[in-house]
């Protein structure tokens, strides 16, 4: 058996984006020995790509805001499928978590009176997104990184975990390898927090970074946890569509938050046509009203009596609208629609949207201060993930916790922009505390069997023994093809059936995947392991999507275009039934307390 080193921790955090870092800082603050595993270098996680802001009802810009409104917006955005307790904690705790970041050195954009500035965003009643230009994620991760490196946390960079290990029912540790030289490492831990992010690399057009290969989803699934709401995959309405090399790269929603207008090839501001009846009253009735809102916003008025433009509808809705416009032949030359901010003073655009300005200039030769961008939907986020307890972030598996994108429940059927960064810090902190409490209750380190370690090593070594097996990059392309054509933005029974059947074939091929070269920094080898994680995620998405026979939030079915109220009371959950079989059950939502129900009933006119 190959050699491996052994490290022991009270709490091991897997994933070093916003949620993982925040969790590690919290667990370490409880006086425990904490390890933090990063798949990349520290500070490079997908969080750096978050642009628009952190949603928190700080009420620095609009005094009418409060956690209750944020809670309601989140539930409405999630089509009421959210874990209400998570949505409540999130809305209540986000402001203090943002203040904490500021205490740790984050430097947000400011209001005239020296407070944290907040901007408008889709689905949020009031101006609520704390931001730093359009590089808020970088600010968040750098702040946590600098805090973290002075917190006595052991950081393992470029280390990938391939298996979680258990002692009976309980979590006992994790096994993995270092990218640098392929050496193996066994972590023994009393508690483990998964904070591995999303699954975007299973799709071809995605805004997600290299690391997003569903690791946490798959690790938890294999360890016996439930994955819920996996049918809900968010397609961000605005990704770059041209040139081909950059297709999918995100164009922040902040462009629309700052007044960006969507138009089709006829010059029509089409979003007015696509506002759902239920929320229509929250948006400007016509271009004139939208213009007034914009004038007030540009003038820096703290509040306005006009309703916000239709471009600020929720993401699911805008993505479908763009898709539909393009299908109807009213798209832009490269198969998107036009997003225009160039009517504003060039200086303001460069100040408010500096990364967007550079991104288009450098990658597409487009000057967004002079003309419109071309944009179209891109796979952006998965609402579904590991089912956890809202207060402690613990999964069904004792000692296994999850936070951030790899966890599920918080966002229901659709996530509002800005609610992701706040999710990371609120539930990162809770997971850190939950895991620390759990670890403190354990008497010693759990036991790990040699057989399990051996199995983990054999699994990692296997692709080298099949050097002539299929090329992992080619199999990833096949997966992209299946995910895109069967489980994309619009779904249909026949497509999904075909997709699931094709997945079964792909599963067999992935079992044969081979790689060449050695163990030293060999991306081909790394991908062999990542493929099986993504496969689990795509199958979970597919089976969950097939079982939900309605359209709700980000899940849109051509064969069931309506929302069915009867299906609004249950989540879909998948779990591992053994023998590679996936089991699917419907789990009822828990009953919401009366005072929260009342909040949902209360109607506020949404002038923001």
């Amino acid at each position, binding site marked *: 058996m190959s050699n491996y080193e052994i490290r022991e921790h009270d709490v091991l955090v897997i994933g070093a984006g916003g949620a993982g870092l925040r969790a590690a800082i919290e667990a370490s603050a409880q006086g425990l020995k904490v390890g933090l595993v990063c798949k*990349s*270098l*520290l*500070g*490079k996680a*997908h969080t*750096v*790509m978050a642009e628009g802001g952190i949603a928190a009802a700080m009420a620095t810009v609009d005094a009418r805001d409060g956690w209750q409104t944020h809670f309601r917006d989140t539930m409405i955005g999630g089509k009421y499928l959210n874990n209400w307790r998570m949505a409540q904690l999130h809305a209540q705790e986000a402001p203090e978590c943002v*203040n904490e970041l*500021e*205490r*740790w*050195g984050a*430097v947000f*954009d*400011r209001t005239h*009176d*020296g*407070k944290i*500035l907040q901007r408008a965003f889709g689905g949020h009643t009031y101006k609520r997104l704390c931001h*730093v*230009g359009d*590089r808020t994620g*970088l*600010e968040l991760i*750098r702040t946590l990184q*600098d*805090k973290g*490196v*002075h917190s006595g946390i052991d950081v393992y*960079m470029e280390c990938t975990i391939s298996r979680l290990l258990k002692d009976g029912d309980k979590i006992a540790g994790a096994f993995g390898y270092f990218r*640098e030289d392929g050496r193996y490492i066994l972590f023994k831990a009393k508690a483990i927090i998964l904070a591995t992010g999303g699954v975007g690399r299973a799709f071809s057009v995605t805004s997600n*970074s*290299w*690391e997003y290969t569903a690791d946490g989803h798959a690790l938890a699934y294999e360890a016996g946890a439930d994955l819920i709401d996996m049918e809900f995959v968010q397609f961000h309405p605005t990704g770059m569509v*041209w*040139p*081909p*090399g*950059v297709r999918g*790269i*995100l164009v922040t929603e902040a462009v629309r938050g700052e007044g960006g207008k969507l138009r089709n090839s006829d010059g029509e501001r089409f979003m007015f046509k696509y506002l759902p009846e239920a929320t229509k009253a929250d948006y400007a009735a016509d271009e004139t009203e939208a213009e007034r809102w914009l004038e007030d916003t540009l003038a820096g008025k703290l509040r306005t009596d006009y309703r916000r433009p239709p471009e600020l509808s929720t993401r699911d809705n805008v993505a479908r609208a763009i898709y539909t416009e393009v299908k109807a032949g009213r798209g832009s030359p490269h198969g998107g629609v036009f997003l225009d901010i160039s009517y504003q003073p060039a200086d303001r655009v460069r100040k408010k949207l500096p*990364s967007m300005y*550079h*991104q288009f200039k*450098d*990658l*597409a030769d487009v000057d967004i201060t002079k003309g419109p961008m071309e944009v179209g939907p891109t796979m952006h986020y998965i609402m579904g993930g590991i089912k956890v307890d809202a207060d402690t972030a613990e999964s069904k598996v004792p000692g296994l916790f999850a936070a951030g994108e790899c966890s599920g429940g918080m966002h229901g059927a659709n996530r509002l922009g800005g609610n992701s960064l706040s999710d990371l810090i609120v539930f990162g902190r809770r997971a850190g505390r939950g895991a620390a409490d759990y670890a403190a209750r354990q008497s010693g380190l759990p036991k790990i069997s040699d057989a399990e370690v051996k199995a983990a090593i054999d699994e990692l070594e296997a692709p080298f023994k099949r050097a002539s097996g299929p*090329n992992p*990059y*080619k199999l990833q*392309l096949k997966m992209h093809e299946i995910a895109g054509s069967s489980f994309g933005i619009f779904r249909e029974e026949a497509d999904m059936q075909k997709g699931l059947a094709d997945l079964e074939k792909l599963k067999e091929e992935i079992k044969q995947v081979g*790689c*060449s*070269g050695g163990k*030293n*920094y*060999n*991306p*081909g080898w790394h991908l062999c392991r990542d493929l099986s994680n993504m496969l689990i995620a795509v199958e979970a998405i597919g089976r969950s999507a097939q079982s939900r026979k309605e359209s709700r939030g980000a899940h849109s079915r051509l064969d069931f275009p309506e929302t069915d109220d009867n299906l609004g009371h249950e989540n879909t959950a998948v779990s591992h039934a053994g023998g590679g079989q996936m089991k699917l059950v419907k789990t009822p939502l828990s009953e919401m307390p009366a005072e929260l129900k009342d909040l949902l009933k209360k109607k506020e006119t949404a002038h923001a």
Partner: protein
Amino acid sequence: MRNAQMRVFRGDATGGDFKEYTVPVEDGMVVLDAIHYIQREIDPDLAVRWNCKAAKCGSCSAEVNGRPSLMCKSRMESFAEGEIIFVEPLRTFPLMRDLVTDVSWNYEQNKRIKPFTPKEDAKWVMYQEDVERVQEFRKCIECFLCQDVCHVLRDHDRKDAFIGPRFMVRVASLEMHPLDQGDRMKFLHDEGGVGFCNITKCCSEVCPEDIHITDNAIIPLKERIVDDYYDPIAKFFKTIFSKN
């Protein structure tokens, strides 16, 4: 579709050489796409570090035709037809494999810098005009291209004595934070090696975030050091009235 001729460094600490590849060029393609093409179609084990492919994470740093660059931001169209494109790892850091170098030294430097230390009675009111210069420094994506190009680190290998431009930027971001009261001047002078920088400005030239590393970070820090160390009266007042 035209083809590009590429020479990509393959090898590890024990040695290596450029390998020739022919890559079809699509509209808008960047060097990182070409590297991915090679991985997918020719050499699956070609080692490269990347995350975002959107010039936001600072992972894909390499030397492209001799210039320290982000591969995800270097467009294939910027090279002349027929021009051979050389891609090699950052030279200032130890090679791991192919295009990947060991940049861990940088992480060690960051740990040595005194963290943000706010005033205890801070009211947390800050005005935009007061945070703007700090925000410029906080744009840094830690690509370490400035570290790679700086002759103190690159040619003289004084990693033992100079923390490099990236961490001058980091120190500046803390020192110029309106609410910070930590003092890093002694560190900068004694251990950080600010005196090694002779303001060649090469670092500013390669910064993908357009941070004015020398003008806005290093020179003001040097001035503060001069005040502290060589102007006893200024230092006297500073100790009495503390910072700001």
